[in-house]
C-alpha cells in the first residue's frame, strides 16, 4: 500500500513570495490533515478535510494560508505572501475517517523563508 505522498520535499523562498504544497493521501482515506511543525515543537493542526469539506480550520491563518481538496482526493496548501515565521515542516496526514482513527503521515515539506 502506497503511503502519503508530498511534494516538494524542500522549498526555499523569500518573504512575501508565494508557495504551494501538494499532498496525495492513501487511497480510500476520507480524512486529510495539514499540520505545521515548527522546529522544536510538535505538529499543530492547520486544517482537516472530510472528503472535500472542511471540518476544522480554526488554526489556519486565513489571511495568508489557503487549502483545498478538490474531488476529495489530493490536496494543496498555499501560503501567500510568506513570512519568516512560516519556516517550518508542513506535514500531510490521512486517515480512514475522522474521530481519532490512526493518522498516516507523509514525509513533510521543509519550508525555509528568507
Amino acid at each position: 500500500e502506497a503511503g502519503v505522498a508530498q511534494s516538494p520535499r524542500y522549498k526555499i523562498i523569500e518573504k512575501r513570495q508565494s508557495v504551494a504544497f501538494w499532498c496525495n493521501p492513501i487511497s480510500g482515506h476520507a480524512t486529510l490533515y495539514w499540520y505545521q511543525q515548527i522546529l522544536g515543537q510538535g505538529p499543530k493542526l492547520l486544517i482537516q478535510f472530510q472528503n472535500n469539506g472542511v471540518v476544522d480550520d480554526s488554526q489556519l491563518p486565513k489571511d495568508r494560508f489557503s487549502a483545498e481538496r478538490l474531488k476529495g482526493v489530493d490536496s494543496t496548501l498555499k501560503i501567500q505572501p510568506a513570512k519568516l515565521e512560516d519556516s517550518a515542516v508542513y506535514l500531510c496526514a490521512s486517515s480512514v475517517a475522522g474521530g481519532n482513527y490512526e493518522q498516516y503521515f507523509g514525509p513533510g515539506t521543509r519550508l525555509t523563508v528568507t
Partner: protein
Amino acid sequence: AQSVTQPDIHITVSEGASLELRCNYSYGATPYLFWYVQSPGQGLQLLLKYFSGDTLVQGIKGFEAEFKRSQSSFNLRKPSVHWSDAAEYFCAVGGLKNTGTASKLTFGTGTRLQVTL
C-alpha cells in the same frame, strides 16, 4: 483546552538499557492518547494508542505505555533500547467532545532520544 506536556526535551540512554518517556495531558473528558515516533526527515509513525480498556497498551517495536488517569499520565516504556530507536517521540491527546464529535489531536513538544553504544 486540551494540552500535552513532555517534560524531557532530550534523553540519552545506553543501548540495552530501559527507557521511560514521560507524558502528562490535560483533557476535559475521557482522553484518547497516542505516541508517535519521528525519525530525521521522516513523517510521524504511530507507536501505540489508548482509547479505553486495559490501561497497559502494547505497541510496535517493543514499546508499551500505561494510562494512569489519577496522574493524567501516559508514559512510554521499552525494556531494552536499540540504537535504531534514536528519534523524536511525540505524545498526543484527542478524544470526543461533549457533542460526540472528535476533537483534534494536540501534540506535545517532543522528546529527542539519543542512544549511545
